[in-house]
């Protein structure tokens, strides 16, 4: 049901972990359908996402989506990153199961929350 790319992100997730420090922005999201959770922490340096990490209590799709989201965000300017959509991550992991759209939605929601926090200086 998952593509080889998605399975690779699940089995060898990129940026799994947690960042700490006063300059860290945090974003969290929950998949209302199943209760899975995602938490992204990132550090912006010179307007770009310099460091990023995620944790997720979720299914294989949630973990793969968070991993792919972090990989996509890493190094991008915050302004451009704020344009991230679910479809972008689903294209990276394609073919993405329709039943797992909640996973990509959750990962992107956590990312946007973290980016928004970083952009507003919170």
């Amino acid at each position, binding site marked *: 049901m998952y593509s080889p790319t998605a399975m690779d992100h*699940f089995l060898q997730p990129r940026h799994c972990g947690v960042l700490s420090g006063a300059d860290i922005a945090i974003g969290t999201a929950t998949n209302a359908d199943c209760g899975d959770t995602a938490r992204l922490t990132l550090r912006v340096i010179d307007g770009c996402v310099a460091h990023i990490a995620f944790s997720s209590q979720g299914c294989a799709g949630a973990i793969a989506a968070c991993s792919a989201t972090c990989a996509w965000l890493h190094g991008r300017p915050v302004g451009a990153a704020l344009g991230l959509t679910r479809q972008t991550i689903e294209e990276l992991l394609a073919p993405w199961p329709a039943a797992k759209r909640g996973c990509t939605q959750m990962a992107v929601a956590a990312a946007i929350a973290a980016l928004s926090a970083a952009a507003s200086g919170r």
Partner: protein
Amino acid sequence: MRRIYLDHNASSPWRPAVAQWMRSEQAANLGNPSSFHAEGRAARQLIERARTEIAAALGADHPEQVLFVSGGTEANNLAIHAATQGSVGRAVGTAIEHPAVGRPLAALADSGWQVATLPVDGVGQVADWSAAVDARLLCVMRANNEVGTILDVAAARHAAPNAWLHCDAIQAIGKFPVDFKALGVDSLAVAGHKIGAPVGIGALLVRDRNRVQPVQRGGGQEFGLRSGTQAAALIEALRLAVVEGTTNLMKRSLHIEHLRDELEATIQAGLADNPPTIIGDQQARLANTSCMAFTGLSAEALVMELDARGVAVATGSACSSGSGRPSAVLVAMEAPVHGVLRLSLGPDHQPDELATAAAQVVAAVRRLRQIAAPV
């Protein structure tokens, strides 16, 4: 990597005798059992021998009480149809019946039947049979497919002495004694692929086949109750699996129970800081079945992780595991519904194989917990 298959409650690989038979020249060259020629007669003889031996193995009085069907779902549907066609009344089933029973039961409401569910307690047992007292049809599985709990069919019969009592024994056969007559049931469902026969064959045992009306009509096979050319090769495979599965059952069951208990103990010891919860009736549980809840994890992620590590397990009933809905069985038991794995053993495991499986479960749980809460 040698894979370890721990999903025998979903489907169990062909037993060696079954595989040998299915690959034989005789199996490949059987005629239509309704034909008069030698090839047809050979098929017919196999069917009638199977009917006789399966009846004996499962405690039926007469071979004619055994009807061959395509599998467990058909057996359950045919039984419910037989019990209810042409009448109305109250139909009752336990809350943990397989969908192959639960859905045809629910559909009876469209025909004017009053349909009710018997709640179960935290281990999957029916604590109060009073709702079944006035049932015309009562459905009680012998053993649950997800948690392994063995239900008290005798209590069901006592509660509703006049009901058509149907027993889905699909998970119990080959794992726990099943005696059709002693259970006092009116019908009993059997599925081949749960005991090492191919998918596509099953049986319905009926106490009084004169009470059965056919669902599918045609050539009049199976005493006119289930038309369609009998799958003689598959019926012979079912005979081989049932006879093997019911021979020396208690000795084999004790051995498998020991292996299952070791598997559970090893996993719990390996995760002593946050051990899984074992779900099901610890006093009356199928020897091969272990249902475990791992706090804070996704069952789907665990299954995928273990699959990549060479271990095949299930999230619960394979029929619904792709649905994303919580298991109706676990909901009915008010048991944990997240992070629940079902490990179901087969008859031939070696201790070292299960030690490897336990180690992989521990490693998979630790990795996913690290992703969920990195330190």
